[in-house]
């Protein structure tokens, strides 16, 4: 394969204790006075957005807290209008994947000057005409959305999910403050962290992998294996929380550049067809997809064993390291299943039936991530994975 890659990253990362308190300075040096703060009602009720606004020391700002579970073009248009009419000069997203994707949609509209998002759907298709400062404050440690150039926004009129890949939706600043994730329940902590682990493992093995994304992926895998169980067993472990937040962000930078593969192709479809939570789908599918890909990228899995279990790496012959790494991942998932109830089979979610398989397969085949999985996805291969995961 021709030796060429692109690595696109932008965000200044503010990570650690009281990171939110430094946002005011970031706004000041960029000459911004009035952010529009986006979030959702759930986080508002929990008091998390209020805490974030207070800790950021915002004086003049406007808010939009009605971001739905699935970001939509209508919401993006409403927020964009609000941004323009209220005289805001930057966007701050406080939330999970949907809030950050909505903010990306708003930024997309503003930087491109295009009102119909359907017209600029695609990869690298956006022409920038304006600058908009964008700050992301993730409230989970999983999606890595604060570091990705990808957004998915639902068009309710077309009944389709529009996908965007553009440098111009990368946040300028990502804020990783442990106060935002410290109260996450163990099960959500586990499923979001497994999402991040999946990002890192797929980033390390997908078609777009490159030396820089590899470095990020490895750092993320190491942090997750070191910290996840500690945090699940002791949710108030601040150092562990910081490590998981860093891991998710690093994995985000990695997969944004090397892409994710079949775990995500099938996982997205399970979410769309059967409403399986994204992190749960990742946990359920990851070992099965790794076994499919082992034939092509077994050596790469073998390399990762040292970051999951250094002693085992030393004692395992090279030819057996790939399987040993998959077993390490399975072992982690099983322990999480026992400690916090993380789903490890599709049956356990109670949402997936065999009659759903056909629709899941069709959607998975057409998912954008299918094209970069090391082993091409066929209907038969996806059904085999689903049956094993059931």
């Amino acid at each position, binding site marked *: 394969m021709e030796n060429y890659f692109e690595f696109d990253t932008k965000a200044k990362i503010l990570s650690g204790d009281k990171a939110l308190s430094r946002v005011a300075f970031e706004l000041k040096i960029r000459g911004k006075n009035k952010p529009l703060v986006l979030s959702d009602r759930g986080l508002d009720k929990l008091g998390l957005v209020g805490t974030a606004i207070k800790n950021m020391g915002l004086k003049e700002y406007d808010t939009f807290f009605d971001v739905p579970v699935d970001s939509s073009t209508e919401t993006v248009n409403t927020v964009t209008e609000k941004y323009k009419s209220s005289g805001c000069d930057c966007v701050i997203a406080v939330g999970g994947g949907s809030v950050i994707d909505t903010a990306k949609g708003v930024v997309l509209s503003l930087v491109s000057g295009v009102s119909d998002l359907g017209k600029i*759907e*695609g*990869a690298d*298709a956006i022409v920038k005409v304006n600058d908009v400062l964008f700050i992301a404050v993730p409230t989970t440690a999983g999606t890595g959305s604060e570091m990705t150039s990808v957004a998915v926004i639902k068009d309710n009129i077309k009944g*389709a999910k529009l996908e965007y890949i553009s440098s111009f939706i990368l946040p300028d600043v990502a804020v990783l403050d442990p106060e935002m994730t410290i109260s996450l329940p163990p099960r959500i902590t586990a499923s979001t962290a497994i999402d991040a682990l999946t990002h890192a493992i797929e980033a390390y093995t997908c078609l777009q992998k490159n030396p820089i994304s590899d470095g990020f992926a490895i750092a993320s895998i190491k942090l997750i294996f070191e910290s996840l169980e500690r945090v699940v067993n002791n949710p108030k472990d601040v150092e562990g929380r910081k490590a998981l937040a860093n891991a998710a962000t690093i994995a985000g930078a990695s997969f944004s550049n090397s892409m994710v593969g079949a775990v995500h192709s099938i996982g997205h479809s399970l979410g769309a067809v059967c409403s399986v939570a994204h992190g749960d789908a990742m946990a359920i599918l990851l070992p099965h997809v790794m076994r499919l890909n082992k034939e092509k990228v077994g050596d790469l899995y073998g390399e990762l064993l040292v970051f999951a279990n250094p002693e085992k790496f030393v004692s395992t012959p090279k030819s057996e390291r790939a399987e040993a790494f998959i077993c390490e991942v399975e072992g982690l998932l099983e322990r999480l299943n026992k400690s916090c109830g993380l789903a490890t089979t599709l049956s356990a979610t109670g949402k997936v039936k065999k009659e759903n398989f056909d629709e899941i397969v069709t959607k998975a085949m057409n998912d954008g991530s299918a*094209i970069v999985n090391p*082993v*091409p996805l066929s209907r038969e291969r996806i059904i085999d994975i689903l049956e094993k995961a059931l």
Partner: protein
Amino acid sequence: MKQLICKVFAHFLYRGMKVLYKRDERVRREVDAFKEGGAFALKFSMDRNTAVVIEKTAGGLKKRKVIKEGDIVIEFKTLDLALKTMTGQKGLSQAYAQHDFVLKGSINEVMGFTRAVEVVMAHLLPKSMLKNILREVPARKISMFKTYILAIFGA
């Protein structure tokens, strides 16, 4: 010259797809899933207006001269990058992975087109080349020679 080469190869890609639409269920399944009246445009360079536009019709595929609103456009960043993909030196998946083109339109819809292109490529290129550009070489339903004969003299 490079443009001409791209156009010739794209023409064979289109003709090959038409041939295989009738003879290979993998191509037929993918093409049938395309939106009728919708089209895939292969634009060879961002600063030149040369493209091959393949439109889905009720009975299969036809070539059209202009790109219309709503078409899915694969626009190569340079003519050299287009040349590599069109001449089979690089697969479409590889080209996507290496950001060789801008994609305007639904990423999901391009997946089916890519799979169809890979099957067509497998019928148009020698196996020694295919191993380097495809993750897995699809089996041929008809020989390379027969594909070219049908592509030249009629599907």
